[in-house]
């Protein structure tokens, strides 16, 4: 798991499962869940958390501001 440098938190109940974050992610971190949220949407989640670089691309394209992004400072992420 040494390569993990970033992580996202999805506000599951805000998510509408549009999938735009999935295609925007350069590292294929995100998948739509098999389960649905309270509104019946297949919400976004990290399917491959080790891959996330914290680049924020997914959060930028999310129309519903569901995604919070965290990234380790470079020295910590070695």
């Amino acid at each position, binding site marked *: *798991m*040494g390569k*993990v*440098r*970033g*992580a996202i*938190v999805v*506000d599951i*109940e*805000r998510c*509408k*499962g*549009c*999938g*735009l974050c999935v*295609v*925007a992610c350069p590292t294929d971190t995100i998948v739509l869940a098999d389960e649905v949220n309270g509104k019946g*949407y297949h919400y976004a989640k*990290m399917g491959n*958390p080790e891959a996330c670089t*914290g*680049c*924020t*691309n*997914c*959060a*930028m*394209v*999310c*129309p*519903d*501001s*569901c*995604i*919070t*992004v*965290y*990234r*380790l*400072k470079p020295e*910590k*992420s070695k």
Partner: protein
Amino acid sequence: MIDVKDIIKPENLVFKKSKVLTDTPMHYCPGCSHGVVHNLIAEVIEEMEIQETTIGVAPVGCSVFAYNYIDIDWHEAAHGRAPAVATGIKRLMPDKFVFTYQGDGDLAAIGTAETIHACNRGENITIVFINNGIYGMTGGQMAPTTLEGMVASTCPSGRDHARDGYPIKMSDLVAQLPGTCYVTRQAVHTAGAVRKAKKAIRKAFENQKRKKGVSLVEVVSTCNSGWKMSPVDANNWMAENMFPFYPLGDLKDE
């Protein structure tokens, strides 16, 4: 070994929902461009620290409830009249930041006169123009911006210029007017495009301080419901079909 839990800590935060957005879930269809542009406006207002001095003018269109999402004072205008409403506000409160948020039917059909004359008078306002090539709110009818051949509920076999006229390039039109200082066409379909669009919106707000006239940011957008596509397909269709006719980039920057 670093665990996800060790990354998700306040000191590592690099992106979160803007404080200028309310917690009200947006009513837009999944994947609708309106939401992305709302976020950008909220971020710009937050970063410029102008939440207390900004007044928005909402249109009639899908974004009629924009005021439920961006936490500032607002005016709800009649369909197409936002630039006139904004004129009244800005003339009486010249030190406030005033912007309109308008769809293509609102800005380029029913509100054409108000748009052109606000631009021509050089009102010191920002216009954010969401061009999704369709009337989203009323169920996908043809807009003045609908591409030739593009299907909408009032041109089910595609827009035919012999019957329906041609798609109108409002940004090109208003860029010709001396009253505009900044006219740009942006998109929000990729993270890169979103970053550029945000810079454009920021500039369009900053320009109000220079009192040089209208700054208009057109955002070529999707309406996946009206277009009857998935959000991802709609973005691809837009890049393939809308961008050749509505090319991205600055039309004017003075």
